[in-house]
Each structure stands twice: as C-alpha cells, then as structure tokens.
C-alpha cells in the first residue's frame, strides 16, 4: 500500500482503478485481520461494498467528473462515527445492532471527496480506554507485536493503518485516543483544535473534549485528510466559522527560526527509558535543523489526569443518560412486576461494559448534590490554568514538544485489572483536550529490541496554539523527513 495522495493521483490519472485498489485492500485486510482484529464490520458484500463504492467512483471518472481529492482512496472509520448504512456499535453491547439513520458530517465530507469506506474499526467501548481492550467485540492487536495492544481508544483505526491495509482511518480523541494509538503503532495521528472538525454524528463521550481526526502513515496524508474534514457545520454549534487554511500549500517548507518548548515535566523519571531517549534524539534532530529548543514549565501536567477524570466522566454520565433502552439500543427483558425504573437499570447494566459503568458512576458522583463544587468546579478551574499555561508558552514558542505516551505499547492484559494505571497512560495527552488545542503524534523512533521483545515504535507529540494546525503540520513534516521513522512498516 502507498499513500492516500499517490493512490488518488493514480486513480484520477487512470494508472489504476478505484476498483482494483478496493479489491487489493480487501485482500490485504482478509490476510491480516485474523491476527489484528481491527475491524467490527467490513464492507465486503452487498450494494454498499467497498468494491461497489469504488466502481461508482470509476464510473464517474470515466464520465469525466471531478471526483475529489480522495478519489478512490480506501478509508476506515472508528465505529463511533455514524454512517447511515451498516451498524454503528461503539464497541458496546448497548449498540451492537444499532443502525444509524444518519451519517456524521466528517464522514460525509470524506465520501463527498471520493473516499471508499472499507469498514468500521474496533475501539474501547464508547471510546473509553487506552488499549482497545474494553470492546464488547474483544481486543485488537498491535501489528508490531501481536502480544501487545495497539493503544486506544482508536486502536482498530491505528492498527489497520499501521498494517498498511488502508492509508487513512478516522479516529476520535477525547483524552489522547488518536495520538496514543498513533504512537503505539508508529503512524501519524492528529487531534485538531476543538471546533475545527464537526462533531455531528460522532457518538458523544465528553462533548467539550471530543474531536475527530485522521490516522495516516504520512504527515502529507494527514494534511490532505484534514483539508477535507475541517470546515463549518451548522449542525454542530461548537464548529468554528474560521476559514480552513491550505494545509498542503507550504507543508514542505520548514519553519524558519523554529522555537520549540519541551516541558520539564515531560522529562519525567516515570518515562520508559526508550521514550526518554527518543525525546532526546528528537530534540537533537530539531536542533540539527537549526531550531531552538528551550525548556518550559507546564506545572499542571501532573494534575491533568485528575482534572480529566472529573470532567470527562461528568460529561459522559450526562451524555450516556440517553441510552435508556427506550428509543434505541439494547432493551432488557423484564420479569413480572418489574417497572420502567427496572427497564432503565437492567438495560444499562446489560448494555454497558465495566469501564463505561465505572465512568458513568464517577460522573454521577462528582456531579451529585453537595459534590459539584468540590469536584467539577475545581476541575474547571484547573482547566483554565492549564489553558493559560499553554498560552503563555505559545507567546514565545511555535509549538510544545513532548512524548505522546510515557511508554511504548504495553502487553495485552497488562493494565486491565487496574483502571488507574490505564488512566495514567494519558498523562501527556489529556491536558491538550482540556485546553482545546491541536496536537499530533509523529513517528520519531523505536524502542531497543532485545531478547523476546521486538523494536516498538515511539511517537513524539507536537502541540500548537489553537487553530495553528498548518504550522504544526510543517513542524511535524520536518521531523518526518529528518528521522524517516514513519517509513518503517511492521514486518510480520
């Protein structure tokens, strides 16, 4: 598989057909899927199969139509993005057979640009998790080492892109769910500024934090996808009216007098030694390109997780209240004498897995009478301070550089028994969602292979000021060219 940019160019100029690309994609998918389990549904047959979609694109090209910048490019969607055909499960028994009556704006934009949807990818239930182990369909696996997790919650999307099945997959990022799996799988993952991409049709987890974004193998493909994804949508009241910049226009031009800030908190002794090394190597690589790299202070990084695990569950407990077994989703059978209250309680107990139940209860507790100020309001004050701290850094620096995750991919089952240990995976990503900033993970290096352990990819994270994605992508492109870490594909 090559990049989305080259596939679209080859299809537009008829060097190949969308159908041929779709057939090859489904073949690759079928070969690797038994090991990766990255999909919940694959569009192999029927009137909306990937091949039928592709043939429709070819027919339009044959008629001389302009089919768009993603003409015939196979893509995968995280299964919390609504599509008006097939199921949208969110990895949950609650929505196991839910067929959305409408399509997410972000998805429609990709379809309108000519993309071919291959399938819906696995995720932690309702996007709550950092390993894709909390899915009612079972875990997905990392193509670099199938004994390890692909990260999460967009783990299926990251695994299938890393395995070179599709060049683009959409994910969603509430506390790191695009960037951490991108780091674990050695690919590029972008969380845009809050408001940049419409959330209409993204099943809500924590509405003030959620953003949709691309997972790709190259920075160029990320820019190409963002160009299509971004833009105002009247159906999302938080969607920005700002004009979307031309992300590709100056992508190849390095930033002159680049100034990067590395938070001293990101040089934590809790980092895996290989992550610490790759951070040092990345700093050295930028310096070698003439950049100035300074240390900055983001004192609340260590408090970000605490604030996040108040704000996100609070919003989740409200958002998921709509799943009551009445209008859609799982409805429990009632015994004689049981009433409406029992219907709610039994449907939700049967429909939601343990991680979702935990977060609903956490949210219910922190919002309950008498605790609101102590928890939620306190977390919102911390949120303000986190944003102010970042803004102070961006007054003098172009971007913040830090790891995307404190360790490379961990083993399947390693953290499932201890929710708090899993939450701490998000230490470098959650503050960015709380501040609403754009950030991305870029492949930057590998762990040291030793007996019994393969070399695993490690991503570095760039964070920029709100709506400064164009410059962030250029800074990422500089690193990509310098390290070539993203060119290595898993060999398996």
């Amino acid at each position, binding site marked *: 598989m090559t990049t989305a940019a080259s596939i679209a160019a080859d299809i537009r100029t008829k060097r190949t057909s969308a159908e041929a690309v779709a057939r090859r994609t489904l073949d690759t998918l079928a070969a690797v899927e038994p090991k990766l389990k990255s999909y919940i549904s694959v569009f192999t047959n029927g009137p909306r199969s990937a091949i039928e979609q592709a043939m429709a694109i070819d027919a339009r090209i044959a008629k001389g139509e302009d089919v768009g910048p993603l003409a015939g490019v196979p893509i995968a969607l995280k299964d919390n993005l609504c599509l008006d055909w097939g199921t949208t499960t969110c990895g949950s028994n609650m929505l196991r057979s839910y067929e959305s009556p409408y399509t997410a704006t972000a998805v429609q934009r990709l379809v309108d640009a000519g993309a071919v949807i291959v399938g819906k990818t696995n995720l932690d239930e309702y996007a709550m998790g950092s390993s894709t182990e909390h899915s009612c369909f079972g875990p997905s696996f990392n193509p670099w080492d199938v004994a390890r997790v692909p990260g999460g919650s967009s783990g299926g999307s990251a695994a299938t892109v890393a395995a070179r099945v599709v060049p683009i997959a959409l994910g969603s990022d509430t506390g790191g769910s695009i960037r951490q799996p991108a780091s674990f799988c050695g690919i590029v993952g972008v969380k845009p500024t809050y408001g940049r991409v419409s959330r209409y049709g993204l099943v809500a987890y924590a509405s*003030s934090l959620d953003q949709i974004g691309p997972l790709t193998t190259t920075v160029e493909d990320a820019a190409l996808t963002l160009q299509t994804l971004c833009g105002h949508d009247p159906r999302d009241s938080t969607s920005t009216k700002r004009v979307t910049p031309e992300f590709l226009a100056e992508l190849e031009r390095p930033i002159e007098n680049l100034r990067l800030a590395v938070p001293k908190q990101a040089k934590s002794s809790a980092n895996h030694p290989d992550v610490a090394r790759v951070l040092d190597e990345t700093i050295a690589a930028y310096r070698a390109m003439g950049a100035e790299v300074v240390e900055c202070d983001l004192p609340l990084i260590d408090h970000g997780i*605490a*604030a996040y695990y108040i704000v996100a569950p609070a919003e989740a407990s409200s958002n998921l209240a709509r799943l009551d077994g009445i209008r*859609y989703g799982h409805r429990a059978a009632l015994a004689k004498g049981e009433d409406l209250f029992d219907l*709610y309680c039994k449907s939700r107990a049967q429909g939601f897995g343990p991680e979702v139940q935990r977060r*609903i*209860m956490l949210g219910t507790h922190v919002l309950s009478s008498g605790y609101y100020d102590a928890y939620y309001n306190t977390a919102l*004050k911390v949120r303000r301070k986190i944003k102010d701290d970042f803004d102070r850094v961006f007054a003098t620096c172009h971007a913040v550089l830090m790891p995307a995750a404190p360790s490379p991919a961990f083993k399947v089952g390693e953290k499932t028994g201890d929710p708090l240990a899993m939450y701490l995976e998000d230490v470098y990503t959650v503050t960015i969602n709380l501040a609403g900033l754009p950030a991305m993970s870029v492949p930057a290096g590998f762990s040291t292979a030793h007996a019994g352990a393969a070399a695993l990819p490690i991503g570095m994270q760039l964070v920029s000021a709100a709506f400064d994605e164009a410059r962030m992508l250029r800074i990422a492109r500089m690193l990509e060219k310098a390290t070539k870490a993203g060119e290595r594909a898993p060999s398996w």
Partner: protein
Amino acid sequence: MSADAEKTLSAEYVRKIAALSRLALTDAQVEQYRGQLSGVLGYVQRLRELNLEGVEPLANVGGETNRMDDDVPGPTLSNEALMKISPESMPPFVKVPKVFGDGGGA
C-alpha cells in the same frame, strides 16, 4: 474537597450512585466498583494541593458562544426511520412498560 473520598466508599453509597446512574448491579459488582472508584477518587484529591483562589472556571474552550439559529423548521428524521431503530414499537409509537399504576410508578 469533601472528606468522603479519602476513605473507601461504602457499599451502600455505591448502590446509591448506581441507582442514580440507572445501573442494576450485583453484589459482586458493587464490591469491585467500590474499590476501583475509591482508588480514582482518592487520586483526584491531588487537585486540593493547588491554589485556585480567584480562578474563573473554564467550561467552553471553543470560541463559539450563543450562536442563534433562525426559528424555522428544517428537515428532520422520519418517524419510519426512528421506528426502525426502536427496540419495541407499534408504529408510529415506541412501546414502553406502564409508567403509572400496577407495574409502574418507579
């Protein structure tokens, strides 16, 4: 921050939160969540270390505020489409257990 989370939550309190959350839990689940929720709530107490005096809470990080729409009806999902996704229906209605009287009245 309140003192409750400094110790382990009681099973009774977890049951109360579960009821507010509309979750029917078994005793084993109550026991498991009791420990896990206490752990997380204990962890978030670290926010108490911070001096937050005079800090304005931040709920909305987007720039968009109070966007007004024209008061004009637009296209919406059809009753037929919504009936198709409801777990039990008698079109054009969704069926629910009795709300009042025998077997109802939660």
